[in-house]
């Protein structure tokens, strides 16, 4: 997947976690935590959704890479380069 597609995948996961949230004005450089009040339970869910969808394992020490959309896409790009988008 290209970075653009990975961004769509993350948006799709976020919209499943928070269906009432308007994600159209999400700022890719601002932490999810600040914009959506995501807590540690929600971050675990992002990790688990990625594992469910793409069998990608994200070790706990890397959770810090999932702070913003920008950092998440950068982190996932090499891990998902061979994966097919499901979105």
């Amino acid at each position, binding site marked *: 997947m290209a970075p653009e597609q990975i961004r769509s995948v993350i948006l799709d996961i976020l919209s*499943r*976690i*928070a*269906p*009432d*949230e308007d994600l159209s004005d999400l700022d890719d450089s601002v932490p999810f935590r600040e914009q*959506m*009040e995501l*807590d540690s*339970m*929600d971050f*675990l*869910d992002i*990790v*688990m959704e990625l594992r*469910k969808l793409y069998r990608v394992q994200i070790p*706990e020490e890397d959770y810090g890479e999932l702070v913003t959309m920008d950092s998440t896409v950068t982190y996932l790009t090499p891990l998902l380069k061979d994966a097919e988008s499901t979105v």
Partner: protein
Amino acid sequence: MTYDSIIIGAGLSGLAAGIRLAYYGKRVCILERHTTIGGLNSFYRLRGRNHDVGLHAITNYSPPGGKRGPLNKILRQLRFSWEDFDLSPQFGSSVVFPGHTLRFNNEFAYFEAEIAAQFPSQIDGFRRLVAEIDSHNIGDLGQTWISARARMAEHISDPLLINMLLCPLMFYGSPSEHDMDFNQFVIMFRSIYQEGFARPYKGVRLILKNLVKKFKSLGGELKLRAGVQQLVTDGKHVSGVVLDDGQVLEAKNVLSSAGSAETLQLCGADVPVDDRFTPGEISFVETISVLDQQPAEFGHDETIVFYNDSEDFYYEQSKNPVDVRSGIICSPNNFQYDQPLEEGSIRITALANPGYWMNLPEDEYIEAKKYWYDQILESSLRFIPDFRPHVIDVDTFTPRTIKKFTGHINGCVYGAPRKILDGTTPFDNLFLCGTDQGFLGIIGSMLSGISIANLHLLNAK
């Protein structure tokens, strides 16, 4: 065939845990002894009318668009949208003690102003207490029992205010007499005073039915009339369950919402004694009066009234069959629905003596319910206009009813005094959720199932 997880009990916590597990592809089966779902928060039909079992109000209210707090957390975790619970906020509630009435609604500032007006010498201390509550971490699973009364007394010197603050929190969630664990106090304080009350127009069945629908759509199995009579163990590890009909089901792990002592009883006689698993002793009698008009028509527009007829507040197992000195008056009509409920009703709840109700012969039991219904209503008329001429149907349930339909020892609705916050048991793959894990109320029980499923059954980390 071996399940990944078997869940004992199709109440709110078991169903919520089941959704989490099924969502992430686990083979999961929920077993419920009763003929219907809900557990301590079930619903039933009697003489053509729908009743909720335990629900007065759903606590932890958050308006649409909210992001914080337990309600939003469980909506996210269960992939529901806010509309799925159809919550209408309360009109307003009160705590009534001799000489003082403290009103509260879903705006905390209103409650704070009430306290400032009625207890001016205490308001600074109250604000310090609130600051302590705000900074407390309820997610710390390693904490031990701390006296809420002692913590409150560090900031508030008037025992009457302490009792008034505790009254709704104890009535809606304390498994222990006279005092609460501070962590439980914080959970309850936030859920009732800082977040507030709401109710779905159709009652708790709406939430339960949405949970079941989601659970099944994700491939989860739900078996009703499937009581667990025994857990199959080797003393350290659980390999499955034996149902009431003798059928054996195997599972890699078991999550039980049956209660802590109740669950250990299922493990057989050779379980080591553990005083954390001691059943509670607090239970209630509840009267439901169906009316020929809405309560507002005879001048009662409050949602919940918590009353107590002296400055001292005795939250304890009743010495009499029912303790009529205090109680809770709930009107399911008094929420901000788009249209009024079809019929008026008033529910009144009071502390009870479980032993008395359990041991009555059947014929005396029916008579005793009638007698104490009258006593409870008479006592409550000090706090609500006399609605007795409007009563067209009645039902009363007791600790015996609760034991019969939920299996909880002593008919304890709030479970054991000692909570097992991390959900662990002496068995390495047997876990607890629900009342005895420690999150309380409708939203809390779902959060309990979610938290324990995440922590132990999803291998999230």
